């Protein structure tokens, strides 16, 4: 598995600014903006980042 990582090293490009990533690959003009979704609230992932370890963070990450 680590060999795959070593091989991949030469093919990685970054770090791309997140806003550019969204604008380039998931541009608003190409998606169906009429679909309604939740509005983001800062701090909503606090239950995740306050977890004591990785394995207990899976569920809070997706169920805040």
């Amino acid at each position, binding site marked *: 598995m680590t060999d*795959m*990582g070593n091989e991949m090293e030469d093919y990685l490009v970054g*770090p791309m600014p997140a*806003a550019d990533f969204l604008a380039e690959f*998931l541009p608003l003009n190409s998606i169906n903006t009429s679909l309604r979704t939740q509005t983001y609230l800062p701090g909503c992932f606090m239950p995740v980042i306050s977890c004591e370890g990785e394995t207990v963070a899976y569920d809070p990450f997706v169920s805040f």
Partner: protein
Amino acid sequence: MAITIQITAIKPFAPSLDFINSSATTDRSGQTEFSFEIKPDICAYVKGCKRRDPSDVSRAEIIIEFKWHQSDDPFCEPYPLPGDPNRSTFLRDNKSGRDTLGQITSYAAAQLGSQFRTHIYSVLIVKDYARLIRWDRSGAIVTEAIHYNHNPALAEFFRRYHKAPPNIRGVDPTVTVPTYKEICLTRQCLNLKDNVTLVKMTVPTGDTECSYIAPTPKAQPYTPPGRATRGFVAYDLQRRRKVFVKDTWRVDLPDIEREGETYELLAGAQVRNIASCSAAGDIGDHRTLTQLYANKPWACKGKRDLVPHQHYRLVLDVIGDNLTEFPSSREMLRYMVHALEGKQS
């Protein structure tokens, strides 16, 4: 029987996706041939898709991997390369980071190899920050760290993915599910068992296109960049016969000829013992994008120049055998003689 935990609360951001905690089981797709375990932490699927829960890379839309220590992050803030101050890197130079890179690369390889996609997205979470990654056959683009508790970019990524049409998600529209009648015809012609899953794919022929039905592919443990050639013994729906379909990402540079054109040249010159190529062509606008970003002001890149690739398919009317499988040495020598005859003519 493993317990499948259906995670529902992220749905407000991406209600068309099911998020499944797959951390306890290995991949169940039956479409990977890796010598190590494929065991993603969370798999996101299109709601209601036919899948083998909880971990099925052949159906996964987005794989999310979790780490809890910064030292496990394969990426870091850019820094000058030791001994080469004109170049910088954003790869963390430690073993655990390289292990994580191998892990997420293997998941991407499994997903791309078992599905028909132009590109895929994955997410790496390192405690309080995340990185979005876009993989294609030229390489992968990685974002800066997104501190997702205060930065909306991660939630926005899922929101937009939920709203995105299939082509933006990387789905190959030239591959579809065959009808029941087509499945029956294919199973009969190719002598396949009832449990073999089939797909229908098109290949351009001049101004039109032909359809072929073949078993679903098995992912091999090769990193995503490259031609990613997959061969299929397939059923030709128009001519009702067995053919060989080659699905590949050809190098898209001006001095590289298309393989179909080479077959055409050889046939025109009446070269002997050349397989008949009945269809070949580029598949739509399926081109890699990673190489276009390698020289952006924010970009650190590897030692190699990234090569553009274009999705391409080719159909041969002759189905070859492996050179390691022949009934007698006489038969093997006959293959060699045919090859030499072709070269001489």
